[in-house]
């Protein structure tokens, strides 16, 4: 056994240039595969991240009836008991973001319009997604405030600005009438046009007062210390909380629609990767073929000198293994700085297209994913491909007729 290994290793270095070329084929294949894959995933991950941080959070607790019927009646009770359960989770939660989100009518003297009220804790929201950064005029509401902040589009439709007063009317908790007058404290620009025309922010206590929903929330967003533990957190919560009154949801459930949309994207990426693999596969095959010509003489000699064909095959086997492994490892190593660089300094898009992307609420960049899974999986795939191709000489080892060997 040791002889076989030694032979294989020495064979490689006997013909340095040839081996290096083969290895570099593998290396480059790995690099390309990782680059492309990382780029594709990067955009995908960025979009999910945007949605999660901007809107849904990683984990949400809701009233079980809320998903079916999102009315104030189905608002959860945010009491000490619930807080305790969250604090005691085995995977810790960095912070929670309590919210009330519901329909209301806003009225000026001329216009009455249906809008969405968002009752929030400004500190927590800011921490989650820099909500208050897009403030254009005035101030954002503070925790104890009783004023409101209008979305830019809505303010212009209603023709109001900071300092004006608006009336809000809605249906409150358990049928109560929700009614109140609120002073406009600030105006904020929202990225998504739909929301920009229809949203009003107020402090959480103000919303709870307005909807007569003391200690209630429509959703409690949890931001875990380690987002990858989200699934575990959801399971733990669902086992500890009374399922009649509480339900924990994972962001994948909350973003179901978006994920379905992405389904097509992942399929097309797979197709592209397949084409890439075939191309590099043939490239590697080409180098192997070349080796074969030279090896013919060598094989012929070894066999006629008495080496068993099976031994020869083993040597070829390990040669292929070494080349593939080295190439893949080198490829992986080289890809790491590349991926990391473009992850933190993504390619910036320009032109009208960039504007369109900004309009839709996303940053106009092409980020690379830094998920190690990409690097490892791609390296493995190419490794396997390279290895399998590298086994071709084994066939030769068995079928070679010594007579045919050219000198």
């Amino acid at each position: 056994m040791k002889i076989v290994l030694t032979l294989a290793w020495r064979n490689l270095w006997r013909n340095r240039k040839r081996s290096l070329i083969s290895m570099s084929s593998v290396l480059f294949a790995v690099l390309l595969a990782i680059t492309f894959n990382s780029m594709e995933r990067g955009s995908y991950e960025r979009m999910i991240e945007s949605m999660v941080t901007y809107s849904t959070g990683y984990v949400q607790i809701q009233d079980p009836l809320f998903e079916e019927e999102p009315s104030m009646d189905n608002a959860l009770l945010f009491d000490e008991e619930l807080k305790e359960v969250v604090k005691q989770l085995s995977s810790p939660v960095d912070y929670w973001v309590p919210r009330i989100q519901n329909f209301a009518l806003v009225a000026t003297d001329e216009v009455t319009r249906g809008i969405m009220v968002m009752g929030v804790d400004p500190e927590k929201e800011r921490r989650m997604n820099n909500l208050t950064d897009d403030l254009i005029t005035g101030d954002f509401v503070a925790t104890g405030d009783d004023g409101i902040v209008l979305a830019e589009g809505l303010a212009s439709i209603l023709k109001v600005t900071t300092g004006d007063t608006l009336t809000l009317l809605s249906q409150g908790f358990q049928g109560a009438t929700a009614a109140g007058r609120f002073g406009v404290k600030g105006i904020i620009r929202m990225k998504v046009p739909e929301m920009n025309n229809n949203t009003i922010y107020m402090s959480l206590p103000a919303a709870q007062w307005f909807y007569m929903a003391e200690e209630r929330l429509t959703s409690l967003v949890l931001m875990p210390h380690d987002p990858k533990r989200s699934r575990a957190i959801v399971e733990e919560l669902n086992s500890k909380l009374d399922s009649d009154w509480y339900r924990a949801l994972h962001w994948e459930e909350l973003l179901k629609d978006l994920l379905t949309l992405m389904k097509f994207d992942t399929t097309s990426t797979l197709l592209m990767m397949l084409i890439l693999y075939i191309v590099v596969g043939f490239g590697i095959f080409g180098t192997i073929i070349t080796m074969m010509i030279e090896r013919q003489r060598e094989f012929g000699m070894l066999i006629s000198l008495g080496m068993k064909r099976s031994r020869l095959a083993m040597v070829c086997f390990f040669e292929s293994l070494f080349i593939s492994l080295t190439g893949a490892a080198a490829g992986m190593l080289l890809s790491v700085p590349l991926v990391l660089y473009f992850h933190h300094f993504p390619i910036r898009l320009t032109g009208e297209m960039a504007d369109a992307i900004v309009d839709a609420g996303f940053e106009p960049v092409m980020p690379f994913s830094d998920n190690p899974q990409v690097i490892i999986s791609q390296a493995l795939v190419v490794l396997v491909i390279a290895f399998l191709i590298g086994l071709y000489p084994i066939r030769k080892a068995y079928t070679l007729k010594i007579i045919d060997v050219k000198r």
Partner: protein
Amino acid sequence: MKTITIISWRNVWRNKKRSLAMIMAIAVGLWGAVMTLGITNGMMAERQRTTIEQHISHIQIHNPEFLKDDNIRNHIEKPEALFTTLDAAPEVKAYSARTMVSGMLATTTLTTGVQLIGVDAAMEDQTTDIESNIIEGRYLDVEGRNLLLIGQTLADKIKAQVRSRVVLTFQDEHNEIISAAFRVCGIYRTSNTTFDERKVYLRQSDLLAQLGADYMVSEVAVVLDAMEETERLSASLRASFPELEVRSWSEVSPELGYMNEMFGVMMFIILLIILLAVAFGLVNTMLMAVYERIQEMGMLMAVGMNRRKVFGMILLETSFLTLLGAAGGLLLGGITLQLIGESGINLVLVGGDSMQYMGFSSVIYPTLEPSFFVTLTLMVAATALCSALIPALRVMKLKPAEAVRAE
């Protein structure tokens, strides 16, 4: 020159397997590129075509106030002059003058927001060919009053069918509330499910009767014989009717323009990666070829073949490989596109139907401009030349005396 060409050609075939491997690699790579880009281009082209044909038309004309507030009172004053101009314009294929109001549609189960589009049945069909998009029931040209044509997405949402009764609620120009019962006469389906969910068609006469108004036009949509005429006609209309807002399709739906830009970027990246893979394969293969013939090279140079000719030989060999591969790949790609392009691919199986939300049809007809093939050929040629440089330069550095004796 001729000699070198013949020699190079013969050299390519000295190692049939290796050359074939390389040719296959290039062919597959290019075929893959052509297919991917063809499909993507097909998708974009299809979306652009259907969006213009079925939804936004080439030019849209409104009262400027309507774009801010789509109340019926923001209608086009004295549209007759506009109609006369449009009737006289030879590039206009058809136009539709619509009365539009947003309102609520109620059934026993659900109430949802919709946009009511009051049309002249004949004019509308000539402009958007809506009658051919009807999948159930009849168009508005049948007998009966208060008939409604709704989109399939909406029909599914409110669980309505042909002959279902619905109640429409909306406001007239004095903000008075109007409610009326309508019957669904037909269900239509376009490539954009979001559109289908919101837009309902009714007879202009029925809508005006409900509003208690004489003729009022909110929007005029114009379809031209040739898309290229859009800018010219828009400009001339703007000049003739400065009080109206005239928008071309690219202004109505800027993202259509961005799509083309996006496609350009995508194409560049995909091609880059594939060509990189090809290039590297070529470099490796040729390097291998050079090394195995190192003695031969040395001999050639020793007997008087000047370096430039050797250089040229390497270049030609590489070019032949590339040409064969490229020709094969592009030809196959072109043929495949032709074949599939006729019948179309149904992407539903790979999740393509999820894109309908954004207006992408799930059945697409891959297609590519001929100019694309030209560009591609040029890029491949450039790749071949660049790839040939490395082995060629390597050969140039050879010292004939050493080479002849090399192993």
